[in-house]
């Protein structure tokens, strides 16, 4: 028997590679500042994706980039990570590279 594929459509899903795959808990997958999931977007944006990326610190904490920059821009932040109060240094190694997986 011969099967002819008449039509197909691909389905893909994406998520940010936070380097923290086992964090399936309630708190693990949300931005600590706005509490919206990483896969969502910061409250100032309308759509998730490349326009509202994540930002990683050397301290390993992850936030929506817009949320973190807004905080770092305030004098009160003293340029510290909101989680551990260490001086914020943006990690270079991954800058908002979405991980693609197909299903």
């Amino acid at each position, binding site marked *: 028997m011969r099967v002819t594929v008449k039509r197909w459509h691909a389905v893909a899903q994406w998520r940010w590679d936070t380097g923290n795959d086992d964090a399936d808990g309630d708190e693990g997958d949300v931005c*600590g*500042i*706005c*509490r*919206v999931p990483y896969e969502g977007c*910061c*409250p*100032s944006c309308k759509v998730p994706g490349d326009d509202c990326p994540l930002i990683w610190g050397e301290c390993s904490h992850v936030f929506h980039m817009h*949320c973190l920059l*807004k*905080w770092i821009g*305030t004098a*009160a*932040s003293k340029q510290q990570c*909101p*989680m551990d*109060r260490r001086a914020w240094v943006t990690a270079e190694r991954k800058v908002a590279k979405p991980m693609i997986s197909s299903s």
Partner: protein
Amino acid sequence: MMEVVDRHWKSPCGGRAPADKEESTSSSSSQSHSFFYVSTTMSNPCKRRLIRDFKRLSSDPPGGISGSPCPDNIMLWNAVIFGPADTPFEDGTFKLVLTFDESYPNKPPSVKFLSRMFHPNVYANGELCLDILQNRWSPTYDVAAILTSIQSLLHDPNPNSPANAEAAQLYRENMKEYVRRVKATVEESWLDSGENVEGSSSDATV
């Protein structure tokens, strides 16, 4: 804002709330009393965060605290902290009001006790001296975290930065009298319990 709260420890909800320009101009005619309706129609980051805070506080409430936004103003919250067991504050129902502005969570809310307090770190007008509400604020804190911190401040005062010199002195030098004075505020806290939940009709202005 300080003039809003009168000596009878009334809820600020019924009185003049800090103006929320956006809402009062755009939606005064169609304002809904449902938080959840409001949440879907507003785009303001601060309010979205407050809705999330409220959801978290309702679905996973830490022991001994409660809090909720005023029905007509999400920027203004009433809260109650129950005095922790095995402390002089035990059984107290201490009312507070939290006032947020648009910069939350990048700035802390202003927090104030409505119930009269006798505590080394609480001023006579109800404002409190707590590092995380000033120079140690972090935008990762939410309403639950704030209230939990205040609760632990009750049984763990910091006598080195006294907001109430007399309370600080008694705490250091005369624990028995300190406890007596605190217990008086515990009993007082029960008396004003009815007035804080909603704005009372008597102070509503037309």
